[in-house]
């Protein structure tokens, strides 16, 4: 409107100016169109979302409401209701990820009660059917010393909080669950017999007092008004041979308070009496619980040695229940734990049980009484730490065609016969395809072969718990899984060492992590297509690793070797035979706490590999300065910058880009410093300090530029800053000459700018495409659950400067980065708690594949410059055929009429 009112000035010059500014607007709007967004009918066509809840901490069956559900509270601070029949999430509430969201208690009746946080606590009541919050009150404990050992439970609409102070007393406080009103002050029960080995099986608190030989088993109902201590000699229950006896409470919301002694004997507390059950624990690793059934309470045990088994006994008689017993060889559940169980009687007087089992690999299974798995959830995927996109192999037919062209030798006749053979094969497959088409369409799932556009890939996901998944990127279906309990996934890296392009060799993927206990390197090599271990299989190193890199040159079998730098600065290479290939290899190690970066050159001296320290940079200005590295961003190892620019030698292609740096470090105090370090030479190429700011551990580095995010404390807003490296006005090197960081004697000119980001980001990544010809967009995952695509032109320093030499007009100057709703990749499919964004190139140059991890998984594909190499999916084939047909008809008819007219004219 402002522009229009300016326009009404009568003079001509003003009009021209106004037109000029309008021009800006036109450009601006055309750029907005650039931000690709999908049509409404494309929902779910290119993308999928999977919702997870995390490893289940507490669970309880909701039997009251009509739609049967399981209410779960998880280690990821999520409260959710799962459909009993399908296992899908009915409703879900995501709490804070910090300790303030920790769920301490879940209690399900008609209403769901949760206690979350850690002093102050929040007590909330939820409607179990809809998930709507009913009430909420806060509770702050005065004495913070022993809060860590506090226990919570609900009893007769009273919330009971118990804190044992070991060796002296137990503090018990009761609150009204609905409003927090205190029923009298907290009572202190004298209990000098308490120690760390005590267990709570609400409302009884049980301890072993004294040493094993003369030990007493003491139990106390902490909620009763009269203090009645149950005391029994320990020798009544166990033969006292071991030096240490441990108690453990029963799992899975046991209906009768009880515990196991030494994982062997089960003791329940009934009528204020300890009662040893006639049933022993079958397996020391078994999970034991007591469930209610029509025939009285049952003791249910589940364990897995080679096969997953369960057995149930009657509490009163000790006899085995025949209906509730199974042993399953197929199901591999490491360390199963009964999370909750429910038994009812069906109409035909049969025992119907549902048992929710959680395993050490974070998977959750709902199992029927006969051992049939109703549904499973892979909750490990709520915590993905590393992702790799892997290409699929070509189909057999395509492979045959390719091999035909590979064979150069042989006479013309041999080539001709091969040609005929392959064509017969093709014909056969077409006929087979026709036959299949006539039959049932059972084989609806697309086979695992590469598609024409290279959009079909396998996503390999490494999860925090040590489970590795292979997932189909188009459907999101899990193809294979591999669980390695010893894998500590902190700082885990995944390398594709051989793609599926080299038949007959299989694709080869390596996961490098740490051993859970020793911290030594642990290397898992597998075939990403099938999930089978290959090559080095599971390799345990006897040393801790500092840095791992992939050799850029493949060996004879097209396998890229793995170079491992260990703590003693020794170098290993896998396989050893690839050692002579090492050349021009550089590595760097950034120490987070001291803010120092070491550079190494890896050299081959004819016998073995050695790591030579080449440079050292103190980013924080020397040790003890209190600086630390918040994040280090490096270029994706396979990234092309118009030419393979990797390792230390960069090719410069025509343009004016130079000084591509491999490492950005953000150093944190009140000052945020972003430093670009050349990873080969250690030279600081550019640096930028921001005062009164807090660093966010987010930085993106591709091509010749770096973008990083920080929180500006002065203005209380998030800002995104960019640094771009240019050669400057003059060309340094001849066009096409290789750039080497070791010979660069000029500093690149750096253009930098910071923009306001009106949102709270939690992850950032840049799109990647096959040949890096397409525009780059920055993908930002926001804490609100949105994933937003920001074209790089909005972050450039030259934004608003005016058209450049090539006539590209940047968007108008503005202090902020626009985040319109159309730029949201995941529209209303919110990703809860996004953590990382991974991108991978597709076979199509225009398209980049995107996976957002966090509590949920979201996959989509983006085309930063629109799909210029693909027909639009709404391309109207009918219209074009009709137009073509009509034109042909029109041509011939006019020809006919024209000839007739000519004839008539001639007759005249």
């Amino acid at each position: 409107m402002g522009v229009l009112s300016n326009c009404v000035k009568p003079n001509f010059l003003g009009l021209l100016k106004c037109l000029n500014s309008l021009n800006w607007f036109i450009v601006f709007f055309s750029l907005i169109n650039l931000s690709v967004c999908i049509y409404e009918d494309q929902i779910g066509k290119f993308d999928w979302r999977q919702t997870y809840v995390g490893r289940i901490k507490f669970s309880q069956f909701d039997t009251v409401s009509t739609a049967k559900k399981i209410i779960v509270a998880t280690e990821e601070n999520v409260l959710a209701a799962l459909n009993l029949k399908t296992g899908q999430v009915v409703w879900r509430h995501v709490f804070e990820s910090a300790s303030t969201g920790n769920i301490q208690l879940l209690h399900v009746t008609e209403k769901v009660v949760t206690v979350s946080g850690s002093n102050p606590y929040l007590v909330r009541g939820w409607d179990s059917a809809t998930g709507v919050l009913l009430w909420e009150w806060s509770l702050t404990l005065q004495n913070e010393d022993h809060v860590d050992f506090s226990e919570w439970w609900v009893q007769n609409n009273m919330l009971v909080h118990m804190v044992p102070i070991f060796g002296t007393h137990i503090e018990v406080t009761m609150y009204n669950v609905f409003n927090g009103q205190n029923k009298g002050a907290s009572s202190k029960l004298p209990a000098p017999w308490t120690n760390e080995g005590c267990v709570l099986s609400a409302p009884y608190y049980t301890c072993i007092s004294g040493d094993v030989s003369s030990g007493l088993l003491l139990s106390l109902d902490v909620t009763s008004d009269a203090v009645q201590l149950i005391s029994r000699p320990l020798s009544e229950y166990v033969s006292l041979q071991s030096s240490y006896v441990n108690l453990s409470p029963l799992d899975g919301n046991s209906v009768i308070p009880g515990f196991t002694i030494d994982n062997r004997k089960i003791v329940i507390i009934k009528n204020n009496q300890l009662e040893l059950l006639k049933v022993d624990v079958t397996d020391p690793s078994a999970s034991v619980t007591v469930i209610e059934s029509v025939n009285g309470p049952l003791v249910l045990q589940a364990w897995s040695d080679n096969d997953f088994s369960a057995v149930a006994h009657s509490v009163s008689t000790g006899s085995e229940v025949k209906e509730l017993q199974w042993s399953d060889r197929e199901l591999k559940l490491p360390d199963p734990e009964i999370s909750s169980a429910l038994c009812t009687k069906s109409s035909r007087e049969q025992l119907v049980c549902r048992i929710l089992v959680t395993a050490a690999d974070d998977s959750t299974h709902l199992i029927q009484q006969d051992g049939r798995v109703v549904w499973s959830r892979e909750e490990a995927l709520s915590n993905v730490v590393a992702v790799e996109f892997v290409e699929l192999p070509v189909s057999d037919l395509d492979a045959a065609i390719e091999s035909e062209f590979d064979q150069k030798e042989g006479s013309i006749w041999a080539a001709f016969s091969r040609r005929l053979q392959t064509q017969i094969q093709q014909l056969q497959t077409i006929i087979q395809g026709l036959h299949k088409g006539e039959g049932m369409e059972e084989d609806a799932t697309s086979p695992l072969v590469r598609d024409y556009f290279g959009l079909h890939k396998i996503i390999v996901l490494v999860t925090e718990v040590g489970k590795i998944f292979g997932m189909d990127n188009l459907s999101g279906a899990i193809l294979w899984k591999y669980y390695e309990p010893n894998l500590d996934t902190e700082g885990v890296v995944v390398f594709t060492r051989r793609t599926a392009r080299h038949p007959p060799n299989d694709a080869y993927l390596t996961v490098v992590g740490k051993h859970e206990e020793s911290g030594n390197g642990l290397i898992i090599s597998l075939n990403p297509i099938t999930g089978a271990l290959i090559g080095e299989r599971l390799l345990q190193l006897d040393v801790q690793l500092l840095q791992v890199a992939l050799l850029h040159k493949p060996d004879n079998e097209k396998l890229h070797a793995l170079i491992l730098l260990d703590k003693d600065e020794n170098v290993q290479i896998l396989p050893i035979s690839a050692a002579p290939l090492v050349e021009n290899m550089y590595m760097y190690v950034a120490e987070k706490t001291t803010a120092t970066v070491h550079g190494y050159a890896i050299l081959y001296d004819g016998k073995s590999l050695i790591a030579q320290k080449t440079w050292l940079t103190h980013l924080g200005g020397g040790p003890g300065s209190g600086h630390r590295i918040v994040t280090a961003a490096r270029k994706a190892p396979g990234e092309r910058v118009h030419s393979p620019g990797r390792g230390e030698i960069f090719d410069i292609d025509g343009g004016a880009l130079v000084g591509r740096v491999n490492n950005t470090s953000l150093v944190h105090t009140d000052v945020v410093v972003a430093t670009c370090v050349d990873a080969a030479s250690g030279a600081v190429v550019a640096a930028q300090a921001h005062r009164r700011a807090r660093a966010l551990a987010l930085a993106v580095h591709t091509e010749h530029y770096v973008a990083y995010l920080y929180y500006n404390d002065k203005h209380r807003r998030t800002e995104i800053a960019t640094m771009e490296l240019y050669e400057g006005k003059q060309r340094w090197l001849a066009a096409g000459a290789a750039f080497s960081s070791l010979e660069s004697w000029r500093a690149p000119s750096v253009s930098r700018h910071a923009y306001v980001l009106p949102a709270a980001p939690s992850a950032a990544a840049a799109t990647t495409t096959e040949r890096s010809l397409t525009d780059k967009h920055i993908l930002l995952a926001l804490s609100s659950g949105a994933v937003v695509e920001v074209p790089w032109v909005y972050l450039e320093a030259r934004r608003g400067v005016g058209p450049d030499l090539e006539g590209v007009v940047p968007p108008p100057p503005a202090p902020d980065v626009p985040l319109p709703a159309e730029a949201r990749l995941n529209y209303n499919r919110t990703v809860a708690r996004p953590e990382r964004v991974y991108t991978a190139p597709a076979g199509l140059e225009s398209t980049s594949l995107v996976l957002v991890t966090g509590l949920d998984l979201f996959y989509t594909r983006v085309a930063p410059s629109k799909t210029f190499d693909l027909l639009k999916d709404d391309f109207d084939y009918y219209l074009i055929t009709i137009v073509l047909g009509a034109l042909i008809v029109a041509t011939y008819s006019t020809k006919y009429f024209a000839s007739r007219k000519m004839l008539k004219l001639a007759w005249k």
Partner: protein
Amino acid sequence: MKQLISIFIAICTFCNVLCALNPLEEEVGNGRYVIEGKVFPPEEQDLGPWQVDTRIHINGGEYIGFIREDGTFVIHNVPSGSYVVEILHPDYMYEPIRVEINSKGKYRARKVNYIQTSQVIQVPYPLRLKALSKYRYFQMREQWRLTDFLFNPMVIMMVLPLLFIMILPKMMNDPETKEDFKQISNLAKMSEMPEMSEMFTTLFNRGAAAKPSTSKTKQIKKRQ
């Protein structure tokens, strides 16, 4: 409007009374405060339980609040400071609000302005938040319209010559225009521009003569 204001005041005073009645809670929390407000559902109420889908993020998820059946929310245990309160709904947009709590426990709520951070536009506290609009995530599919078809440059290119062909001969019959046309053609002759087609034909003919290999093409032409 007046009614609204009076309701505001009533709510404010009610809250104050509540705070006065319950001073213990705030003291207990060692300088911890609550942020409260009410969220109004979007106009179209076909969403089912919108309360479940709506979350309240304080400072990008540092604190998270949930909405009760009636739309009210309370975020407990917030120390004094400045907070951005965002109401997040997958389909509806709400305006974020900055709430500042000073060390004495005084509240001030204002609109969030990331660019001019010193600008203060106060809004009432406890917060009352209404859905601004529905998010527009999707592009509209282009629909087939006759006008679009007619004004398509391709179509115009085809239709206009057709019109010329049809209308020009008719116009030629008119004697005046004939005169005009003659004048125009005379003018064109005055300039004596070499004709384009002639130029090309001479050019190509020369080229054909120079290359003996084009004899094949001639043969083909003959066959045709």
